[in-house]
């Protein structure tokens, strides 16, 4: 599932989601405990969705062009989760993702909070402080940002639409810092670290690809 020989660190949330995916991969739709569960499951549910969405963005068949429609829909979903979390954080400074009493969503997964917009321009991030803290704890990811920032992808591929690659989406998203949906404090708690590790390895992975591309283009 990881593909391309990348070692993955321990992470419970996304692994569980992964197994889930494999199980459903054969076309079965399992019991939708997620939607039928009580309010306590909803934070977990969102957490799982987040992990799942990141994993979906990460997992693709090497060498085959991605479906832009799917990627855009996935990223918009991630943005919505981000908005939802942001609204939750605004509502409760101590709100932790996945907290059983998290009032972020009500039973049927609706999020009235996210109707208030910010989806079009999530760059106006009010949580810049929490962002900084988190970025600090992910030096690897930051290094990745710097590395990619120097790359100036747009100049190299001036005539080519490289933007359809997940890699540039992800990396430039990080460079922009705010547009990428995962700029809020996902990893403020233990549970979140799993996801972060996944993202980290995901980014490293994509960096490798970028590096290879760079070599190819330069040669």
């Amino acid at each position, binding site marked *: 599932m990881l593909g391309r020989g990348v070692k993955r660190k321990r992470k419970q949330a996304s692994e569980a989601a992964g197994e889930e995916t494999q199980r459903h991969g054969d*076309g079965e739709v399992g019991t939708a405990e997620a939607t039928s569960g009580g309010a306590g499951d909803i934070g977990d549910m969102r957490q799982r969705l987040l992990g799942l969405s990141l994993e979906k963005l990460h997992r693709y068949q090497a060498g085959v062009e991605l479906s832009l429609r799917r990627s855009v829909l996935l990223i918009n979903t991630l943005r919505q989760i981000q908005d939802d979390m942001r609204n939750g954080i605004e509502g409760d400074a101590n709100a932790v993702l996945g907290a059983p009493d998290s009032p972020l969503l009500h039973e049927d997964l609706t999020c009235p909070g996210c109707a208030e917009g910010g989806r079009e321009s999530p760059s106006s991030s009010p949580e810049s402080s929490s962002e900084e803290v988190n970025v600090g704890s992910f030096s690897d990811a930051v290094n990745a940002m710097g590395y990619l920032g120097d790359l100036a992808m747009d100049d190299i591929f001036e005539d080519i639409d490289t933007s359809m690659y997940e890699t540039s989406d992800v990396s430039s998203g990080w460079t922009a810092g705010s547009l990428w949906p995962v700029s809020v404090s996902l990893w403020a708690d233990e549970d979140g670290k799993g996801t972060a590790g996944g993202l980290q390895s995901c980014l490293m992975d994509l960096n490798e690809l970028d590096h290879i591309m760079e070599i190819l283009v330069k040669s």
Partner: protein
Amino acid sequence: MAGVAGGNDFQWCFSQVKGAIDEDVAEADIISTVEFNYSGELLATGDKGGRVVIFQHEQESKNRPHLRGEYNVYSTFQSHEPEFDYLKSLEIEEKINKIRWLPQQNAAHFLLSTNDKTIKLWKISERDKRAEGYNLKYEDGRLIDPFRITSLRVPVLMPMDLMVEASPRRIFANAHTYHINSISVNSDHETYLSADDLRINLWHLEITDRSFNIVDIKPANMEELTEVITAAECHPHQCNVFVYSSSKGTIRLCDMRAAALCDRHSKFFEEPEDPSSRSFFSEIISSISDVKFSHSGRYMMTRDYLSVKVWDLNMENRPVETYQVHEYLRSKLCSLYENDCIFDKFECCWNGSDSAIMTGSYNNFFRMFDRNTRRDITLEASRESSKPRATLKPRKVSTGGKRKKDEISVDSLDFNKKILHTAWHPKENVIAVAATNNLYIFQDKIN
């Protein structure tokens, strides 16, 4: 034309099934598009292996009137080959995304087929005579040295077995950076449009080295991209009008007379979202997977993940009709997101008189809706009921509560068996339904 569910007077029955029975389905054999030509005499399918198979309607005879829905293979050809984009280091799949017939103008038939990047115009013609007896070439086709030819023989046309030839007439390449999702022949019969995720191009059928970009929604900064084009179609009668749908559930109607670049739409069709049913998946399920004008040109139909909607072109704020295709999946969206089914692109089609519509679902089920009676029916494309002229039994999915006899529960639906592509004969009640690698043909049964 009678209704789809029809009560006592009208039923659907099995006519034919094409394709291997083998349980082991080769990826290349999966049907990726189905399309009748304008008369309904020919039916074309494209598959993931880049092949186009054309079926021809079996001539009816008085003794066997039931042959109305019988088609036989007329021509098979390899339309697209797998390619490699060296610049991007990516494979270009040979999968046929769409086939569109051109209106017939002479004895030959023409169709457009497209994969992700390249559109091809094919001529399908018959030959039942060959020239024989001329002495300019050897038998293996090499030209004879003119100095050796001492006399000139006039060739004679000799009858031979009927041969159907498919030859590529035009190749429209290098105009799409993203994946082509739609092609649509214009009513002027001279131009056609092709749409990818971010752009729509207008072509002349005779000219392959240039096309006009008529829609471009690519933002200068791709990070700002939040929407893609999912389908596009020309109006059936007004050659200046076309529509395109988006991943945000909206449809834009453009008038090419207004400006060369139709970035500004003339009409914008959008139904306000019901806040009570909002979820993380709202946008994904509202993404439109297909848009089709009615034959009359008055309406258009759009398919999203859970429903099909009919819009009056004169009313932009909401559809005039909404039909639920498989509402019981709303509680399963999380699982369908996990297994990626939520990204499936179901298509839809009108019957010849615009009185009924058809679209696919999972478990090899497909749905028909009668617009007049508002009745709907779920049918199944399955080998089990594929006895000649066997009546199709309506199927039901139990939605909560106790499962009645003959009903199937939502949990036992097979999500690998999906009907994405269907086609309705333009004049008759004959339908073609693509179920993975099999093509089913059904017809109405008049008692």
